[in-house]
């Protein structure tokens, strides 16, 4: 059962009609084949046209789609023998940020990422993918561990942001995010990051400061949510669509700005319509990026990553 977004209403209506038609067709009765085919073609075209010109705000909706493949789905399909590792060794464990060792197409990798959860219980368990300081400290710990054993790092980014809460502040949310970013910049192994859903500000960046950054076609990555930006600059969250546009937060804009390296095409109608196909494409792109980093000496991997981020924004223009 696909959950339809507001702007997908016309597609939803068509698809509902097709379903109805199929269900009502009597066995061996009137041949409805041609009619259904016609409608299906129409629905597919409508979907293609809709997705070909998604606005930045509509992309935000797609990136947040409840059925969008999350960390668990991606790791389940791409990583063999995933062994989760828990805890920051300082305070606690944070289920919003997952990490562990496994094999990706034959090679050992350290996998780190945000998990949003897929139903009410798991969303609460994973705090909707909003990491706490212990989550970011765990991430930093795992990056350092990977670097020590010369294991490449792969991260999957999908968060609305680091958790804004009293205890998170008390335990140094800002410092934890800063240290996680610092860990990204100090490891000397290949590091590829994939923005697979929402890339929300510092909470995303803390896992995404990698050698190569890839991004799903309809993912977004921004300094603040469109709603947050709108409520500050326009003084009303109703202007979120305008803010989404102005912030240049789509994969296409970010590639133009040189912030990300590669866009991974999603199946027609978004990754949530065909999660397995989407994840496989993501896997192919990841494998390709890792190959690009193969054989580079450790010092160079780190130096290149630093040089990449030291130059960010220096000569940018939209």
């Amino acid at each position: 059962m696909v959950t339809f977004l507001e702007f997908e209403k016309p597609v939803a209506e068509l698809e509902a009609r097709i379903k109805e038609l199929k269900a009502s067709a009597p066995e061996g009765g009137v041949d409805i084949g041609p009619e259904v085919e016609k409608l299906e073609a129409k629905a597919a075209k409508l979907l293609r046209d809709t997705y070909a010109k998604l606005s930045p705000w509509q992309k935000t909706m797609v990136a947040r789609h409840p059925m969008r493949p999350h960390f668990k789905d991606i790791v389940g399909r791409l990583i063999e023998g995933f062994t989760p590792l828990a805890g920051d060794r300082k305070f606690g464990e944070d289920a919003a940020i997952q990490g562990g060792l496994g094999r990706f197409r034959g090679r050992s990798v350290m996998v780190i990422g945000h998990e949003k959860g897929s139903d009410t219980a798991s969303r609460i368990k994973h705090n909707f993918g909003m990491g706490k300081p212990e989550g970011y400290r765990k991430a930093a710990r795992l990056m350092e561990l990977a670097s020590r054993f010369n294991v490449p790092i792969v991260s999957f980014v999908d968060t609305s942001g680091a958790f804004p809460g009293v205890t998170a502040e008390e335990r140094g949310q800002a410092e934890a995010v800063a240290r996680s970013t610092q860990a990204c910049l100090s490891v000397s192994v290949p590091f590829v990051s994939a923005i697979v859903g929402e890339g929300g500000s510092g909470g995303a960046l803390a896992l995404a400061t990698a050698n190569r950054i890839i991004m799903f076609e309809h993912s977004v990555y921004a300094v603040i949510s469109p709603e947050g930006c709108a409520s500050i600059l326009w003084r009303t969250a109703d202007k979120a669509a305008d803010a989404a546009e102005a912030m240049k937060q789509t994969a296409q804009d970010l590639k133009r700005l040189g912030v990300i390296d590669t866009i991974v095409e999603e199946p027609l109608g978004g990754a949530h319509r065909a999660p397995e196909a989407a994840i496989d494409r993501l896997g192919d792109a990841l494998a390709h990026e890792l190959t690009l980093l193969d054989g580079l000496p450790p010092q160079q991997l780190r130096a290149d990553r630093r040089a990449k981020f030291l130059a960010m924004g220096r000569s940018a223009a939209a």
Partner: protein
Amino acid sequence: MSWLTRLRPKLSFLQKRDTPDNLWHKCKSCGQMVFRKEFVENLSVCPRCDHHERIGPNERFGQVFDAGAYTRLPTPPAPEDPLKFRDQKRYTDRIKAARASTGEPEAFALAQGSVGGVPAVVGVQNFAFMGGSMGVAVGEAFVAGAQAALAARSPYIVFTAAGGARMQEGILSLMQMPRSTVAIAELNEAALPYIVVLTDPTTGGVTASYAMLGDIQIAEPNALIGFAGQRVIESTIREKLPEGFQRAEYLLDHGMLDMVVHRRDLQETLARLVGNLMRTGAPAAA
């Protein structure tokens, strides 16, 4: 609103208490009126309630460097309005207005001089310039300061003050977080002290990057320091925030700072710290 309160602002004789800016200073915290000259001599700290007023780069440099002597370092130019951003106003107009009102090119200023006899580079983030917000130019200036410190083999002292990232530069402002972090890594590896003095207010992406990565973390009394904004937190937890939440003393209690230092003791504290970390005055090795 009664007819009286509506009328009041229009009656010019009632406004006489708002005397010219240049003569009197009214404390934003306790309302005390102080002669401006006296206030500035008191390092822009209220003599009655100790409220530390936000100050700009020139005043800060004058307070921090020995005998108030320093040389301003130029901050490198950065691409202006890279996203062609427009909200209710054009971003370029906002920059122009900020330049006109502060007389500074951007929200981060640099100077070189000595602190307690130790040559040092000092960076000051200017809250008066678009809330001190961090865009590419701020990142560029921060990095330039770190590189000047590297070149001179001197400590880098940074006074932070910012609402966070500059939204008008979108993702490029976010990218200044890792960018500044690279500059700090270079200082760390060269064994040069990077000292942060958090001033009111320091929040958002600035806190989540260079403001929290100091070798020594100092804050001014009662400075607001945090990651998330208080309204955002309140709406998340749906309850009142604890007393003193996100204030300097609160962070000190939670192990996030080395010390909270009154402005009158700041220069001396910094001098002692850089002297110790740079091991000045040590006996020559035998």
